[in-house]
């Protein structure tokens, strides 16, 4: 028996920056792959079991989220692979990249296998992992990077535990580049951050919150760029927050260094001013900085200095935010606002459609070195279909993530996800 299994998507505006495509097309998917793209595809000529009328809708590659914590293993009271991949799949995100700061840390093959096992049983979207750069993320001994790569890790990182020993860092960069691994760095000098919880500036001074200076990020980037220039390693800076950092990265790119960067979507909207009411949902690391920083980050995305936008998804249980501001846990549950906030930048003429889609799909795909984020013939059939003209409001009750911790509750959005397709399967 050969049951028809394909999906035919008719007359959507297909935006696929990797193939320089932005036009109204039909697209046919079968057996988990993109089979055909044409101006018109007759259903009778396909094995389509389903036809989606996409007139007036946007059809784009599925989103690849460079940094999302699913909290498993180790913090299942906050979230699990199952809950968060369901949330992702309902938000147009088809691939999640998890940093290695799970418990246990992803620093050996067995932990990668454990996660892959969980993914196989429960995941509703693709998950890829970064391996730990150092054993237990302690910044002392190199992890078995080759074994981690063989087990499936797409890069290595010390996540949000900075390596302060410059010699260890240098050797980690050298060793990673020997194995053709991209190093993912969240730049932060813990001495300068000094347990701060807000951007060091006028607002933190007024609120009496311990501050984190710009230099906590930019000094690390400056140091690392010097090492990269010497070693030639391939490095990605994640979750950039300040104008000074952007300046350094732009300069390095002009000099030909192989550095890329991403920004968390919330950094493109909120600033230190949003802390004024001690709103613990605005407790994030790195902290929200000044308006000029937010504008520099927007400029950097629009000009390709920062290639990717990610959710920096950090779901929490309600109690984690029910304390005085400094005692709350940092982070935002961001999966469900990644797409609508990014498209808000299109509405505000900060980004073009091409730029927005690029920063969510092909750019993060290239950074991770995975063959996803595009709709070439034969590509994995991961897609997001968006209604560009449907008002909706973010409410805790309708969020799918187990974490409802977001400062964007009550925000109005104009673009709503219509369908997600993963591996050629329509998510219901």
């Amino acid at each position, binding site marked *: 028996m050969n049951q028809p299994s394909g999906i035919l998507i008719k007359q959507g505006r297909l935006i696929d920056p990797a193939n320089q495509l932005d036009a109204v097309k039909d697209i046919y998917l079968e057996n988990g792959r993109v089979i055909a793209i044409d101006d018109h595809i007759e259903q009778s000529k396909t094995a389509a079991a389903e036809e989606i009328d996409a007139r007036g809708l946007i059809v784009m590659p599925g989103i690849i989220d460079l940094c999302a914590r699913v909290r498993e293993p180790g913090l299942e009271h906050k979230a699990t692979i199952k809950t968060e991949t369901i949330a992702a799949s309902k938000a147009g995100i088809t691939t999640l990249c998890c940093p290695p700061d799970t418990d246990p840390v992803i620093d050996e093959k067995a932990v990668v296998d454990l996660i892959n096992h969980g993914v196989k049983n429960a995941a509703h979207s693709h998950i890829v992992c970064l391996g730990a750069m150092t054993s237990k993320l302690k910044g002392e001994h190199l992890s078995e990077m080759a074994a981690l790569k063989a087990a499936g890790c797409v890069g290595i990182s010390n996540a949000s535990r900075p390596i302060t020993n410059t010699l260890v860092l240098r050797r980690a960069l050298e060793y990673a580049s020997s194995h053709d691994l991209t190093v993912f760095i969240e730049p932060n000098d813990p001495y300068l951050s000094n347990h701060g919880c807000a951007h060091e500036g006028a607002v933190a*001074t*007024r609120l*009496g*919150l311990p*501050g984190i200076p710009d230099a906590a990020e930019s000094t690390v980037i400056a140091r690392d760029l010097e090492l990269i220039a010497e070693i030639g390693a391939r490095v990605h800076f994640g979750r950039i927050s300040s104008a000074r950092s952007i300046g350094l990265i732009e300069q390095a790119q002009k000099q030909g260094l192989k550095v890329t960067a991403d920004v968390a979507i919330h950094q493109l909207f909120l600033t230190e*001013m949003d802390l004024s*009411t001690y709103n613990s949902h605005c407790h994030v690391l790195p902290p929200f900085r000044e308006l000029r920083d937010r504008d520099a980050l927007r400029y950097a995305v629009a000009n390709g200095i920062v290639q990717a936008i990610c959710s920096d998804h950090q779901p929490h249980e309600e109690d984690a935010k*029910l304390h005085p501001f400094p005692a709350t846990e940092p982070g935002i549950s961001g999966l469900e606002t990644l797409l609508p906030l990014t498209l808000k930048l299109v509405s505000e003429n900060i980004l073009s459609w091409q730029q927005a889609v690029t920063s969510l799909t092909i750019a993060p795909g290239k950074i991770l070195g995975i063959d996803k984020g595009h709709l070439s013939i034969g590509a994995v059939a991961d897609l997001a279909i968006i209604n560009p003209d449907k008002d909706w409001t973010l409410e805790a009750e309708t969020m799918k993530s187990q974490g409802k911790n977001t400062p964007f*509750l009550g925000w109005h959005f104009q673009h709503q996800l219509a369908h997600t397709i993963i591996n050629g399967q329509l998510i219901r």
Partner: protein
Amino acid sequence: MVNKNARATNPLLGQDHWNIQLDENGRLKHFLTIEGLGSEILTEILDTAENFTSVNKRTVKKVPLLRGKTITNLFFEASTRTRTTFELAAKRLSADVLNINISTSATSKGESLLDTLYNLQAMQTDMFVIRHQDSGAAHFAARHVAPYISVLNAGDGRHAHPTQAMLDMLTIRQNKGHDFSALRVAIVGDILHSRVARSQIHALNTLNIGDIRVVAPRTLLPADIEKLGVNVHYNLQQGIADADVVIMLRLQKERMQGAMLPSELEYYQQYGLTSETLKYAKPDAIVMHPGPINRGVEIESCVADGMQSVILDQVSNGIAVRMAVMSMTLGTSAQQTGDDK
């Protein structure tokens, strides 16, 4: 300074953090910070406190204003002066007082601040007086307690200590008169960690002070402090030159360990208020200190005890100011009672 987005769109947020202090009639409901309160309210606090100072001078130092009310002093940080003056203030208003200290409380067993508040609320408390190590703790409490409960901030992290600032204003007013516009005030010492300094700066600016100076090395100054409306000085002699009021802040010993200062000796030589350095201020300048003082660290004994020192007046005023704020927030007019001599 209000973030319109956050306010308009986040239903979990509640009110802006300064408006949360006022009820729908614009009366003081909580006392969390000076910031955002108008000069009328600050002046009302000072006038009410002035009336209570006469109560405090009587043989029977008690008025029945808050009879039947329960006030809970919830102190997560050690304190002698502030807690005892809050306690005395409550008792002189005839309230019942419950004192809870962190070291003996359930929080050391892992109970959250919110659970502690809810448990005490279940015991029919009418007012919480809260001191906590985290900035924003008093706002957090005010946002979560039952609507009939008032919260007084007795110090939260580095953020605010509004009753201390008001007792300082009362002390300045008693010594320098009601018009602050020609006055020059210098605040000297660890501004970075000081909730007292932040509240004083807001209060002085609201009361139309002529000139506020903060004096400290840069390691003890928070970023962009000048945006609070102060002039910054790194040199003591220049900073207190022609000042009418010199406020010294306590220097905590821990500051030596964080590489903020080289030594107590060098700090004393550079920023200590001595009979010599005090000569740079006006001859009739008053010397203030929120206490507890470190003799020989930030202030010379003979200055602390000298003619220009009003440090002990500040302590007495503390009781009157706390009585004023308690009676105002619990909704009982105290103006008339104070006249009842």
